[in-house]
């Protein structure tokens, strides 16, 4: 668990500088750099766990509640509250943060604050929050492109002068926030480059363990690592990631609506997860956060995705001894989502009224009933695979059999979801535009 030492080594994170200091107050032994490795007393554990809980309470939870409050204005207050509860019950984040032990709620929470800023028109505050998130965890780069395209698109839409002025303002905020975060490391060039080096460890492999991304799944068939050198893999993955980004980003650039922005966040982070270099299984949390945001509007597919994303981390969770919480939180999430989200919309609202002709022709090809049936089959498969990997030892010839099956299974679904979310971004008729039309006609 790298974050066990994170409290000591987290110099890359100016934002959490206060944590070790607090620990120092309580018990100085905990923060001594080298001695503190492997300390795991009851009190220390309790302290570490409670720091995550407090971070969650202060940053992530209020952001989710506020998000549901501002984006679901057309629904009843109790529905808003319940949907925020459902989003908070997302098992993946809970298990990783409070079971495996990480501080994802801080970076994801800050990103969510940034998104709220964007959606509510406070772009300066939003970009500041995003820069903070980025400086908290470099993984937030997965979300960076949609932010850029959205802001740039908004600026271009404005009148020439006003747009330029806005762009300059945003740029200044971003640069100043960056400078403030990096202030302690800027004096020494070596130190700064060392920090960068740690942030982007290109010297590591193409992927770690078994990840449900494209390269890992492909390497089951082809031994990818032997084909190219590591250096060329870095460029290859970068190239593919960028290529796949084009459609959604260009679309967002020209139509920077908030709905497109949210969909692009999903697409971009999912592409990063599937195609970029050195992906961890935990990185699925980044696309998952963006999917959580769509959950109240598109319950069916989002629920499906979120369950798959948690399932893809199963081998890790088994290693951490989190099988019971995994099972229970999954069931809890499934039940509450099905119950809270309007049962009518959860029965494939997308397919009942296909918004465009193109989509209609796609729908006739794969009928709604088929997809719904596939969802249930998928749930059953998840159950069976979970049971196998917990209770049955794999055949000795293939010790990694279950993790490999899980990652390939999940990867195929993620690719399908990528297609779906692209369709959603390009053709989905959005509530926002509907509402705008409605008010205009009134």
């Amino acid at each position, binding site marked *: 668990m790298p974050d066990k030492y994170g409290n000591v080594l987290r110099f890359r994170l100016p934002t959490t500088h206060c944590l070790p200091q607090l620990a120092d107050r309580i018990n100085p032994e905990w923060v001594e750099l080298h001695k503190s490795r492997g300390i795991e007393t*009851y009190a220390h554990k*309790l302290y570490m766990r409670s720091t995550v*809980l407090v971070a969650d309470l202060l940053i992530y939870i209020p952001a989710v509640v506020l998000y549901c409050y501002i984006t679901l204005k057309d629904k009843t207050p109790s529905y808003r509250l319940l949907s925020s509860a459902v989003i908070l019950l997302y098992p993946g984040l809970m298990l990783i943060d409070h079971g495996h032990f990480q501080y994802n709620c801080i970076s994801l929470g800050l990103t969510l604050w940034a998104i709220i800023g964007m959606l509510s028109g406070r772009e300066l505050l939003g970009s500041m929050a995003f820069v903070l998130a980025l400086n908290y965890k470099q993984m937030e780069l997965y979300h960076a492109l949609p932010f850029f395209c959205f802001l740039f698109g908004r600026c271009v839409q404005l009148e020439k002068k006003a747009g330029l002025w806005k762009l300059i303002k945003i740029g200044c905020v971003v640069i100043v926030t960056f400078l403030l975060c990096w202030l302690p490391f800027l004096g020494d060039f070596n130190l700064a480059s060392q920090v960068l080096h740690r942030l982007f460890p290109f010297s590591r492999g193409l992927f770690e363990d078994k990840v449900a991304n494209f390269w890992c799944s492909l390497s089951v068939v082809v031994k990818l690592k032997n084909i190219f050198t590591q250096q060329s893999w870095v460029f290859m993955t970068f190239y593919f990631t960028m290529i796949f980004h084009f459609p959604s980003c260009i679309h967002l650039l020209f139509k920077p609506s908030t709905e497109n922005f949210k969909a692009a966040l999903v697409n971009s982070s999912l592409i990063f997860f599937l195609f970029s270099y050195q992906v961890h299984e935990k990185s699925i949390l980044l696309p998952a956060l963006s999917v959580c945001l769509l959950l109240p509007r598109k319950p069916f597919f989002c629920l499906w995705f979120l369950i798959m994303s948690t399932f893809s981390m199963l081998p890790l969770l088994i290693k951490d001894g989190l099988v*019971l919480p995994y099972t*229970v*939180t999954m069931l*809890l999430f499934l*039940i509450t989502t099905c*119950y809270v989200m309007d049962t009518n919309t959860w029965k494939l609202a997308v397919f009942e009224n296909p918004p465009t002709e193109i989509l209609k022709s796609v729908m006739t090809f794969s009928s709604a009933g088929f997809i719904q049936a596939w969802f249930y089959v998928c749930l059953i498969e998840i159950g069976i695979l979970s049971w196998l990997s917990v209770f049955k030892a794999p055949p000795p010839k293939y010790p990694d059999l279950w993790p490999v099956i899980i990652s390939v299974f999940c990867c195929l679904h993620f690719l399908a979801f990528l297609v779906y979310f692209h369709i959603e971004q390009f053709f989905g008729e959005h509530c926002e535009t509907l509402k705008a039309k409605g008010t205009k006609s009134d």
Partner: protein
Amino acid sequence: MDADCSPVGLYFWPVVAVVTCIKLLLMPTYRSTDFEVHRNWLAITHSLPESKWYYDETSEWTLDYPPFFAWFECALSYGAELFDPAMLIVDNLNYASKGTILFQRLSVIGADLVFICAVKEFCSTLPGKKNKNEDLLSQPAFTLTLLLIGNFGLLIVDHIHFQYNGFLFGIMILSITRITQGRNLDGALWFAILLNFKHIYLYIAPAYFIYLLRCYCFTQANRDGSVRWSSLSLGRLVMLGSIVIAVFAVSFGPFIYMGQLEQILSRLFPFKRGLCHAYWAPNFWALYNVVDKALSTAGSRFGVISVNASTASMTGGLVQEFDHTVLPSIPPVITLICTVLSIMPAVYNIWRYPRGPKSFLRCLTLCAYGSFIFGWHVHEKAVLLVIIPLCLRKQAQVYILLSTVGHYSLFPLIFTSAETPIKVCLMMMYCILTFMCLGSLYRTTKKNSMVSILPRLQKLYLLGFIHLYIICEILLPLMPFTKKYEFIPLMLTSVYCAIGVLWSWLQLYRITLSDTTKLQVKQD
């Protein structure tokens, strides 16, 4: 019945599923010595012949529940064999392997199915939805489901502390349901069975006895509502008696045959214990102890009485017994007399003005109250025996007061710091649910806020719990001088709660008796 109009709606199983998930999540938490108690009983009932069950003293936690519970453990032990046979060895004291924990926790969750079914059964006697679009919160059955199945006390006591109360309360609710449906014999049967599972339910036996005698065995009443002595139906009396005796015969018969009745009774009713449990249950005697303590402190300060150090160092009941210094010490007989006196009005009321099942439930609650407040060596957990029947009744004000107080008084049961957030969060959730549901059920106008059904003084008292928590759990432990007086937080808690328990008790009595006078006025 049409599914749309049935009182047990579509929400029932989702609520059950969510609560069960929470129970499962509580599996790895702290567990008290009761866990070992039940493990030991599993081992005894599995490995020893029946004749030795009530004689085994390998562990200090000897079998002290009636025979049905022993048989229940015996049945469970066959499941336990599949998980980890080592837990069934009597000499394996304090054995807690992963399999053992998993099995025991699951057995509690599984046994709760009885409770869930009983709640469903009771809810189906309630009036259903009036129209299809009615809000969930304004349906009594929904509120009841939520408050019973998600009951904070049961979660804490059964699924963290470890006991099988949910299962037992299930049988109790089932018996109450049968009586409210007018199926008196079934009710009596279930209650007799319940008594043979756990004898603490003897506390509410007077209500059953008087109600069944008055409303089942006597078939007619005079015009003013008093009993007509000549209407005693011997047939019914015999039926009732034979059912109860048959149940007891099945349960105790084999042991009486083996000549062990005396031994079992001495196990079931140990009178060697003190007036109060280690942590004072929030009842009348807690107040009595504190008054005594205050008087003795004051007295020794002003030199009126001389107190020797040994009696004054009362460590909050860490010792089982202590003598009162100023006020007279209480022998068990006094508590018995107090209890009987306290339930007298309720019992007389049901005898003189029986008004069907409603008055039965009322009398039952008051009996439970009386024995909790004045009983000998009462456990704080016994408050559930009052809370659960009260929940079945339409007394929102009293319930809000008592459930908050009673559940708060369970806090000292769970004292480990890792579980503190769990208990606080669960408690807050349960309080919010209670206020929300009962508030929307009982408020008079739409605009009323949720807490407006409470009088102002009660609101202030309930808000005091937040301060009490901060003082007891945060401020006092930080003070340097409290090392010497570790009992102060516990004492404060139980005294503050005792006030609330007595208050709600008096309130309930007032409501009961004023209802009766109303009835009298009507008849005149």
